[in-house]
C-alpha cells in the first residue's frame, strides 16, 4: 500500500455505521506493550531502538492477522505524510516528532494500526465505527495474542503489563469513544456532563486525543484506570457511562426540537448554507459548521447528504489532506480557498 492510496479511501471508522452512529462516531481500543528488559523508547539509544523495531517488524511479518498491513518507518516519511497519518487518527501527534527508530503499521481498511517506539515499544489500536468497543476488543485481543507468541512482553504477575508510564500499567488498555454532543453543548449542560465524567475517573479529550481541545462538539471519553480491573470490566464500565451520555444527548435533542425548533433549524440551515457557498473557510469554522450539519442530518432536517460524507469532510479538509489532494504545499490562505472548494463540491453534488 502507498500512503496516497488512502486519500481516496474512506476509513472504516468514518463509515457512520454501527450502533448509535448518530451520536457515537467511533470506538477505539489501544493496548500498550513492551519487550521485556529492553529500555523504553525515551530511554534507549539508537541501537537499542533499532533492535526493538527490527524485532517487532519481524514479528508483525509472521502474523496472519497482520498480512494485509504495511509498515512505514517514520524516518522515510516527510512531514506532510506524518501529519496526514495523524489527521487520519492512524498515529499520535507525538509519534511524528523525533522519528528515530519509529514506525507505524497500518492495514488497508484502517482498522488496525500499530505504532512502534512511541511512548511504549508497541501501541496497538483498533478502531470501529459507531458504539462498538467489544468488537474492537475482540479484534485487538486476537492480534495481541499473536504478538505475544512471537515476542517476550514485559509482564509481571502482580502489576500486569509494564509500561513506560505508570498510568498505563496493568492491562495497558485504553478504551475511547468519540462522541458528537452538539445538543448538550447548545443547551449548556455539557459542563455538568464533563464534570460527572471526570469524577468517575474517566477523561475527556478533543478530537485528536491527549492535549487537544474539544472543537465541533466532539468529545473523546476514555478510561483512566488500567490496573485492578479486567479488560472486559473496564469496557463494561465505559459502555455504561457512554449509554448514559447518549441518553442525555438524545434528551437534549428532544428539548431543542420541542422548545427551540425554529432557532435550531435556523442555525443548522445557515451552517449548511455557508458551507455550500463559502469561497474561503478556516479549519475551525469548517469543524463548527459541519458539526451543525451533522446534527441536522440526525434530526432529519437535512436529507441531501448522509453523515458518512460529513464524517469524511471533517478529515479531508484538514491541512495535510488538502495538500495531498492538491499534490503541493499550500499556504494557510491557499488552504482556506481549497477547503471551501472541496466542501462546495461535495455538498452541492449530492
Amino acid at each position: 500500500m502507498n500512503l496516497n492510496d488512502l486519500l481516496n479511501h474512506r476509513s472504516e471508522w468514518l463509515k457512520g455505521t454501527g450502533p448509535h452512529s448518530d451520536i457515537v462516531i467511533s470506538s477505539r481500543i489501544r493496548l500498550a506493550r513492551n519487550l521485556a528488559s529492553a529500555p523504553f523508547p525515551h530511554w534507549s539509544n539508537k541501537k537499542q531502538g533499532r533492535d526493538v523495531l527490527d524485532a517487532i517488524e519481524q514479528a508483525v511479518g509472521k502474523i496472519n492477522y497482520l498480512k494485509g498491513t504495511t509498515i512505514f518507518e517514520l524516518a522515510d516519511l516527510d512531514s506532510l505524510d506524518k501529519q496526514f497519518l495523524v489527521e487520519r487518527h492512524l498515529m499520535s501527534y507525538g509519534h511524528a516528532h523525533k522519528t528515530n527508530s519509529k514506525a507505524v503499521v497500518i492495514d488497508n481498511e484502517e482498522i488496525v494500526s500499530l505504532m512502534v517506539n512511541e511512548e511504549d515499544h508497541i501501541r496497538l489500536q483498533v478502531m470501529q465505527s459507531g458504539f462498538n468497543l467489544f468488537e474492537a476488543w475482540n479484534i485487538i485481543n486476537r492480534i495481541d495474542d499473536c504478538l505475544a507468541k512471537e515476542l517476550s512482553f514485559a509482564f509481571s504477575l502482580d502489576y500486569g503489563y509494564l509500561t513506560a508510564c505508570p498510568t498505563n500499567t496493568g492491562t495497558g488498555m485504553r478504551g475511547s469513544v468519540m462522541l458528537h454532543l452538539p445538543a448538550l453543548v447548545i443547551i449548556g449542560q455539557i459542563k455538568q456532563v464533563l464534570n460527572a465524567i471526570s469524577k468517575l475517573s474517566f477523561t475527556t479529550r478533543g478530537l485528536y486525543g491527549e492535549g487537544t481541545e474539544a472543537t465541533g462538539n466532539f468529545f473523546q471519553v476514555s478510561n483512566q484506570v488500567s490496573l485492578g480491573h479486567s479488560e472486559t470490566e473496564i469496557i463494561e464500565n465505559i459502555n455504561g457511562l457512554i449509554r448514559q451520555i447518549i441518553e442525555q444527548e438524545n434528551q437534549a435533542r428532544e428539548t431543542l426540537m420541542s422548545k427551540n425548533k425554529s432557532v435550531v433549524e435556523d442555525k443548522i440551515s445557515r451552517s449548511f448554507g455557508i458551507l455550500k457557498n463559502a469561497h474561503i473557510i478556516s479549519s475551525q469554522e469548517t469543524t463548527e459548521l459541519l458539526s451543525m450539519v451533522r446534527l441536522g442530518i440526525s434530526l432529519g432536517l437535512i436529507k441531501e447528504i448522509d453523515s458518512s460524507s460529513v464524517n469524511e469532510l471533517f478529515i479531508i479538509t484538514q491541512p495535510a489532506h488538502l495538500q495531498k489532494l492538491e499534490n503541493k504545499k499550500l499556504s494557510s490562505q491557499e488552504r482556506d480557498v481549497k477547503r471551501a472548494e472541496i466542501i462546495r463540491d461535495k455538498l452541492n453534488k449530492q
Partner: protein
Amino acid sequence: MLCDVCGKNPATVHLTEIIDDQMTELHLCEECAKQKSMQMEQQFGLADLLAGLAEFEKPIEEKETLLLKCPNCKLTYKDFKKIGRLGCSECYEAFRKYLSPLLKRIHGSTAHAGKMPVKIAKTAKKRLDLQELRVKLQKAIEAEQFEEAAKIRDQIKAQEKTQVPPQPEEEKHDEPQ
C-alpha cells in the same frame, strides 16, 4: 494585543506551551483563559503529575531514594521523578517500594486482573493453583482438620515436583534483590 481565541477582548493572560522542543505562545483574554484553564485541568492527566505524586509518598528518605538505580537500564529514581517515565520493565522491581503506593494512588489497586501473555499464562496458572492450595492448607490447620491438611500438603508436594521453573521475569517479583 487582542485575544488569540476570540479576537475581541484585550489579551491579559500569556501562556507558553512547550511540546517536544516546539514553543507556542498563546495570548488570551480573561474569559478565554478561564475556559482554557478548565480544559487544561481536564487534560492535565495523571502522567504530568506523576513526579509530584511520587514525592508525596516518601518525603523523608530523600538522598538514598534519589540515588536508587535500576540495575538493568541505569535509570535513577531521581530521573524517574524528573521525567515521569520509567526506563525499562525492570525499573518496576528496582523501585517497587515507591512504585507500589504510586500505582495504588493512580489506579486504586496494585493487583492486575486482566489478561496475560499466552506464554506466561500456562506457568502462572500452575502457580496460582499452588497458592490456592497453600491458603487451603493454612485454613485446614487453623480449623484443626489435620487429616484434610495432610491431604492438601501431599497435593502441594506433588505439584511442586511437576512445577516448571518459572520464567526469569516472573521470579524477580517474588524475590527482592
